[in-house]
Structures are given as C-alpha cells and as structure tokens.
C-alpha cells in the first residue's frame, strides 16, 4: 500500500469520525438546552395558572390555543381547569417536580406544582409539553449546525489528498530516479529542493553507491592485479621448466615439473575467469554477437591441442546472433570444447552445433569420450569437483572449475544446460539453451 493512499484514507476516516462524534455530542447538548428551555416555560406557565385560579373556579376551560403546551388544574382532587386536548384524568402523580408520562398516544414532560390558596384549599397545577417537540427542536438546532460541516467532508478529503500528494512529491521523484537508474550506474543521485528527511536518505544512498562502486573497483583491480602478479612469475616458472625439459629430455622429474606448472597455470586462469564472469561485468559488456564467429574463433584457437590428439572436430552452425558478452561466450565455448577434447580419446570425434529455435540459441557440444554417469551429473557443476577426485582417470590437466564456469555463464543469460549421452558419438553431449534477447526485466534481475 502506498504511503499516499494510507495517509489519505486514515486522515479522511479520522475526519469523518471526529465530525460524527461532534454531531452526537452537539445533539446531546442541544437536547439538554431544549429541555431546560421547556422546563422554564412549564414552570412559568404553572405559576401563571396558579395566579389565575381565583378567576376560573369551575368547569373545564375551553381554551383555543394551538400551543402544544397543555395543563390541568386540580383543586382538592377536583379538576377545575384544563386545556382543550387534555384528558380528564390526572396526567401526573400528585408529587411536585418534573416527570414524564404517557397519555393521548404521546410521551409528555410534565411539571407538577402544589399551591395553597387563601381559602385553605390545595391547588395542583400540571403543565405538560410533548417530549417529541423537544427532540424536534434539538434536531433542528444540531442539523443547522452540522449540515455545512458534513457537506464539506468530501471537499476536505479531496484537499487532504492534494496536500498529501504534494507533500510526497519528492518521494515520487526519488523513486522514479532510482527506478530509471541503470543497474551498472553507481554514480551519485541529486534531486533539487528535497525536504530535510529526504536529504538524509539521498546522502545515505549516495554514500552506499560510492562504497559499492569502490568495492567493485577494488574487486576488479584485485582480479587484474592478481592476474599480473601471478602470471609473470608463472611464465618464468613455465619457461624454465620447458628449458629444463629441453636440456634433459629423458628426465622424468623435469617432465613432471613442466606438467605441474601447466596445471597451476590452468587453475589460476580458471579462477580469474570465474571472478571475471560476474553479473556486473557481464552487463557492462553486453553486445550483439554472431555466435558462429565466436565458435569458429574458439575452435581455431584450440585447434593445436585438438590436432595434437589427432581428433576430428566439426562445426555445424546456423548464422545466429545473441545478446551476450564476447568474453563470456568465448569462455563458454573454450571450456566446453576443451573439455570435449580432453575427455575424448586420441583420434576421437567432437561435434559442435549451433541452431536457433523459437528465439533461443541452442549450443550443443558432443564428444566420443566416456560421458558422465547420471549419478555424477549434478556434481560436475560444483566448483572444484572432478570425477574421481585427483585420481581422475583421464590423466588430463583440470581443476574442476570448467563446468561450474559454464553453468555461471548460462545463468547470466537466464538459459538452461543439460547433460545427455551423445546420439552421434556416444560420449557426452552438453546442450545449452540461451534466450536470444533477454528482456530488460531479466537484465535488471541479473544485477540484484
């Protein structure tokens, strides 16, 4: 729920609640006022009637007033005077003071007063007014006071909505700015005329951005620094090991040394690749690529190794394009094809095929090696996992990162990977399905 809707709803509800509470309270007060007024009238009329008693001494009086006030005058238990509509029975008990009673199909408020005449007779004067009249009076009062307020509620609610909308505008601007910011854009944001609270948020966000961008830079620099720092000494080691093998060709120790150096170089290479195929870097390098060209380039690059093992490699490719990073796609092909060559026997076969099905690029690499048993299939994607551990029967250089890297790259594309038995050559068939164009949404997700 948005803050704006919440505020508008809560404030409008409170407004309605307060208005009605005020109305109820006002109604009660008006009722009391009306009753007080009526009581005074009843008292005054009673005392006036008592004074008149000397003039009207007998027979019911037929007064013609249309007033809602009625009265009865009793002398020594005899009704001596009453208003026209008044019943002839006593309308109240003979107890002084105010009371309420029902007669003539109405409820009445009655005032009874006792008077002693000069001739020692006891005079009771009852004056009454319908309770209904009081309610009508109170309602009239309260309605005239409350109607304008109730009618103005929708306008006030609209005003609240406008004010809340205006007050929250900076929030909206900020949200919009953050929404449209590209995932790889870590530059500071700046909005003019921000309220105090948002200035703090803006500062915090900018601090976070700057820390994040520093962290990325550090990570990136670390990777390239490590590459340089490790690669040069490794080159020296490799060069000297190769020289040693040349100088003492039959020496097994020298051969082992040269092979270990190769292995180390491979591991370091793969670790660096693993650190370079992050979502952040991937997105910065996105480009429309011709997949066939990348595959051709990779095969050409790996061909000496393939030819050395007298293997046969074929590429069956359609002309397909893919939104990807050249580095990631090259690495993907390198790992797959180099694996296929390593784990196929000498004079073995490798088939790389590329096709496009329903805007997905299908990359398949098949070989004539041993394949991977179904029990091992899910493990080979784990980092540093090798079938059979260090006793891997293939006797080839490897560190167990190849397929983990491939899986990472497939994930960056929101694609899928499956391992099967090759129908053509009987070995392993790796099939990869990559969406040709990732939706913008996907690209956003990749970054989070």
């Amino acid at each position: 729920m948005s803050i704006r809707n919440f505020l508008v709803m809560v404030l409008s509800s409170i407004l309605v609640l307060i208005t009605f509470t005020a109305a109820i309270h006002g109604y009660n007060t008006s009722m009391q006022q009306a009753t007080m007024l009526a009581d005074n009238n009843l008292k005054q009329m009673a005392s006036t009637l008592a004074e008149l008693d000397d003039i009207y001494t007998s027979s019911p009086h037929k007064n013609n007033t249309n007033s809602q006030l009625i009265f009865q005058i009793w002398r020594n238990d005899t009704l001596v005077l009453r208003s026209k509509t008044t019943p002839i029975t006593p309308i109240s008990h003979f107890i002084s003071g105010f009371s309420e009673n029902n007669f003539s199909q109405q409820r009445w408020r009655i005032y009874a007063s006792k008077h002693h005449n000069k001739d020692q007779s006891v005079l009771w004067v009852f004056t009454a007014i319908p309770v209904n009249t009081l309610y009508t009076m109170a309602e009239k009062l309260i309605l005239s006071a409350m109607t304008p307020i109730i009618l103005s509620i929708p306008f006030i609610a609209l005003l609240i909505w406008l004010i809340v909308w205006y007050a929250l505008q900076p929030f909206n601007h900020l949200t919009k700015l953050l929404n449209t910011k590209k995932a790889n854009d870590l530059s500071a944001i700046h909005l003019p005329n921000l309220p105090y609270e948002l200035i703090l948020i803006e500062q915090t966000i900018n601090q976070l951005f700057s820390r994040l961008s520093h962290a990325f830079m550090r990570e990136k620099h670390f990777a390239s620094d490590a590459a340089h720092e490790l690669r040069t000494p490794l080159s020296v080691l490799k060069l000297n090991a190769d020289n040693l093998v040349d100088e003492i060709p039959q020496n097994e120790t020298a051969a082992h040394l040269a092979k270990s150096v190769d292995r180390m170089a491979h591991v370091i290479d793969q670790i660096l690749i693993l650190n370079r195929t992050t979502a952040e870097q991937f997105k910065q390098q996105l480009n429309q690529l011709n997949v066939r060209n990348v595959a051709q380039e990779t095969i050409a690059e790996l061909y000496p190794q393939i030819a050395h093992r007298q293997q046969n490699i074929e590429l069956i490719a359609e002309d397909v394009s893919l939104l990807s990073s050249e580095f990631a796609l090259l690495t993907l092909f390198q790992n797959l094809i180099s694996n296929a060559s390593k784990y196929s026997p000498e004079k073995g076969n490798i088939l790389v095929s590329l096709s496009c099905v329903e805007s997905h690029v299908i990359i398949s690499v098949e070989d004539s090696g041993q394949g991977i048993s179904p029990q091992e299939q899910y493990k080979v994607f784990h980092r540093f996992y090798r079938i059979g551990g260090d006793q891997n029967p293939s006797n080839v250089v490897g560190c167990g990162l190849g397929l983990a890297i491939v899986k990472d790259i497939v994930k960056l594309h929101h694609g899928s990977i499956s391992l099967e038995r090759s129908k053509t050559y009987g070995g392993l068939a790796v099939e990869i399905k990559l969406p040709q164009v990732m939706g913008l949404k996907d690209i956003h997700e990749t970054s989070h």
Partner: protein
Amino acid sequence: MKILLVEDDIELAHGLMASLKKEGFTLNHVQNGKDALLTLSTSEHDMAILDLGLPDIDGFTILKSVRTQKNPLPILILTARDGIEQKVKGLDLGADDYLVKPFDADELKARLRVIERHLGTAKSSLITIKTVVLDLAAQKVHVDKIALVLPKKELMVLTSLMENAGRIRSKDQLETKLYEWGEEVASNAIEVHIHNLRKKLPENFITTVRGVGYTVDSD
C-alpha cells in the same frame, strides 16, 4: 634475427633469452620504457617483444610512439593483461601479434617464425612440411623434390596455410588474404582453389575442419 625484448621482469627475460637463443634468435634486453624508446630510436632491430606493464611507461604508449614515427618494426605484445579489449586495442594500435602470459614457449617461437618469414629475413625462406617444400623467396613449390607449377592465387592460399601450419585458416581469412593482394574473389573461389590444390598435393595434406576452415598439420 635481432629481437629487442622489453620486459621488466629479469627472471622472465633470462628464461626467454635462454629459450630463444637455442632457436637461433639474438635478443637484446631492456627493462623499462625509457630505455626501450631510446634503443628503438638508435639501434637496428628486426622486431620487438613488448611487455605492456612496464614500471615507467605503459606498453601501449611505446607502441603508439613507434607507430607515429612510421616505424614498421614488427611488434609482438607479451603481457599478463588478458582482456579481449586489451588485445583488440593492442592490435588496433599496430601490434603484429598478442600473446598472454603464461605462454607456451613453442607457441611464442612459432609466432616469431611467422613474423620472421614475413620479413623475409629468415636464414632460409623455405617452409618444409612433410614432403612439401615451399620457397617463399622464389615463390616455388616442390613436392617430393619435383617442382610444382601453381597459379598465383593457389600459391597464395597454400602460402597462407603453410605459414600458419597447425592452425586453422578460415575461409574469411583466406579471402581477405587474396583481397590484400588485389585479387578479385568470387563467392566460392576458396573452395575451388582448395579443390585444385588437393589434386596437386599429397593426400590429406590440407585438412578441412568442417564449419571452421582449412589447415595444414605442422607434423
């Protein structure tokens, strides 16, 4: 061939000099960019091996300065920087080749030999693979010591393949090679040339890597 080695790591330079000496290359070694620029402007070298991460001047700056002086000296970049952008930048700036550390000594030697053949300074301009001998200087081919007469375009295709023996030449690369020499290239020209060459050369001398290109195995 006289090579200038620009490399700040002394150990690596020594290893390289030991390795390349055996192949008959002569190496002069400088350790920083300043010395490299000085040496390049004063003394005669046939080519240079250049490290990018030098302590004083960036390797790319040296490369740029050499090329702005219209110095055609072949330069092979040997670096720990492995990014594709770096490689593209290096080649765009006029480097002849780009090799990433840690490298294979044999690979380096093979690439140096390609440069040497291009320069025509090789002690011998002969490339011998199996029974086929290609004389680059005389533009002649012998198979089993019998001279083979080849049309110009076929010779160019064969030269490109034999110079890069062990590596794949794509159809595009071969076409580009013919274009460079000012030849008209029809759409299936390469296939036709390869077909003709195969008829004249020993069996399986040229291998087709289906979907990628052609290659001549180096051994």
